[in-house]
């Protein structure tokens, strides 16, 4: 092999061009992404008890809220809100605990330094975590939707499947973008990261309107918390599953536009934040600082 040539990356010329370097880098990062996602997807399948507990235990909490509405003689649609909220909760929990605070956990277990020693971009690791987490969590979310609907006799009415798919996917893009941005932010922190994630759990359930239409909090509050993908996404999905019921606070098309905007903002924030936090963490010697 000629020095400076990497045959694994298809480079036979002695001097690699800018394009082949770019392709090589892209391939490397895609492989890193796949590897990080693989751990999440395969990890669950190898431990079937996780699958069982992940899917069935959260249903109890969802059922408790359904019975709260039943005890108040609420219309059947409210049980549907709770089931939908229960499914979306899984994504928020995944973003908080398996995205945002993951780098903190990786730092504590010594993986973070290995990520930074390798030639890949940390963004590839974050993307891999997102894809793996999304696949892993979708299983729980969809099972909650299917079993919850069946158990409580909830019927959703899908008139625009394309819009529904777009609203859901854009919510996920913005939500996981937020998770990536938070992960870069948490890179600097120690135990605070764990506590911040813990703190963000219930308040976000409240302001995202996971158990009730966000409109109930009033237009001012709803608009103020529209920077949260879950708030906007939940409202859009809810409107598309109950067309014409008047539960939304903004038209679906506007909400889809907001989600596109939020996806772009959070992904950019993640990249900029990661670079900035990495520099700061290196300067302060926090990248390998454990048990603080």
């Amino acid at each position, binding site marked *: 092999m000629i020095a400076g040539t990497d045959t694994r990356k298809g480079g036979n010329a002695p001097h690699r061009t800018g394009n082949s370097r770019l392709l090589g880098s892209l391939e490397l990062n895609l492989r890193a992404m796949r590897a990080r996602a693989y*751990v*999440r997807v395969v*990890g*669950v399948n190898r*431990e079937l*008890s*996780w699958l069982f*507990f*992940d899917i*069935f*235990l*959260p*249903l*109890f*909490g969802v*059922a*408790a*809220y359904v*019975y*709260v*509405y*039943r*005890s*108040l*003689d*609420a219309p059947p649609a*409210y049980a549907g809100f709770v089931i939908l909220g229960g499914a979306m909760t899984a994504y928020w929990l995944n973003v908080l605990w*398996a995205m945002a605070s993951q780098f903190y*956990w990786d730092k*504590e*277990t010594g*993986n973070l330094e290995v990520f930074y020693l390798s030639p890949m971009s940390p963004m590839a690791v974050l993307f891999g975590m997102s894809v793996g987490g999304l696949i892993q969590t979708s299983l729980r979310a969809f099972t909650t939707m299917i079993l919850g609907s069946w158990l409580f006799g909830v019927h959703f009415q899908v008139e625009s499947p394309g819009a529904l798919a777009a609203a859901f996917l854009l919510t996920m893009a913005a939500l996981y973008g937020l998770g990536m941005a938070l992960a870069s932010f948490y890179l600097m922190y*120690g*135990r*605070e990261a764990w*506590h911040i994630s*813990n*703190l963000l*759990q*219930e*308040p976000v*359930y*409240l302001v995202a309107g996971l*158990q*009730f*239409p966000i409109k*109930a*909090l009033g237009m001012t509050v709803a608009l103020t918390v529209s920077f949260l993908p879950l708030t906007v996404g939940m409202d859009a999905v809810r409107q598309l599953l109950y067309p014409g019921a008047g539960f939304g606070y903004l038209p679906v098309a506007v909400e889809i536009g907001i989600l596109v905007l939020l996806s772009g903002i959070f992904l950019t924030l993640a990249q900029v934040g990661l670079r900035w936090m990495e520099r700061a963490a290196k300067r302060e010697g926090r990248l390998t600082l454990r*048990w603080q």
Partner: protein
Amino acid sequence: MAVASAMATMTAVLTAAMAKIKGNWRVLQLSAWLGWQLESNWTDPLLFLGYIFVKPVASSLILLVMYLVVTRGDTTAPAFAGMYVGNAFFAFVGQVMFGVSWVIAEDREHFATLKYVYISRIRLFWYLLGRAGAKFVITSISTAVLLLFGRYALGVPLHLTGFRPLYFGVVFGLGIVGCVGASLFMAGIMLVAARNGGGYAEGLAGLFYLASGALFPIDILPRWLQGASLALPFTYWIEGLKRALLGTATGARLSALGDTGLLWRLALGTAAAIIVGAGAFRLAEHVARRRGLLDMQTQS
């Protein structure tokens, strides 16, 4: 001579027992202090106070909005009062159970100290009870704030005139012991489970949340679930607390039980929870040691 020898033996036994009790008490105190430091010293006290209030207040506000969005009614109604008080006290079940089981994952994988605790002279059992103590203190503060918030901000009818302190004290104490039993059970599960098992405690708490009737009368549950509900100590605990604080019984099934009958059922359920919890913990400890799981590292 024989009497003197018997006396000496008895004194020696008593001294040894006292030394053991003193030792365990010291472990309890120190691990509770450690738990408190771990929970609180990551930030300044003022921010920490805010932190312990935000979560429970947010979860109560969720219930408030759910209630208002359907009934548009007043928050002094018995249905809301029962729901509010049940939710405020149920935090003990969730927090203590999750907190203690998470100690296993945290000490084993994060701080990697579980193995050192295990090979030291102290008993893991007492160490965990101490850590549960720290969780208990934090949850007590946030529950007290929730009750005050409910009384003064939402108008929940929590009046001192209807308050029965003795009944409250007995019911509350028994329920906390039941929480410790459930926590030990979950800690045992975590000893043999991976880090992801942290979610199991939350899932089990979800089951108790549903079946205990913390938020609604158990009469609206399906019949088979009502049976499960009546087998749980937490059902009687929450009901007893509502009676002590609000002065009213909830739902037809539980209203049929007198205060003393309720107390007896709670005592029996608590005893069962402690026996099952401690037994499961010891069994899991044995399995974890045999399989070499006490210092495992898991990832996802």
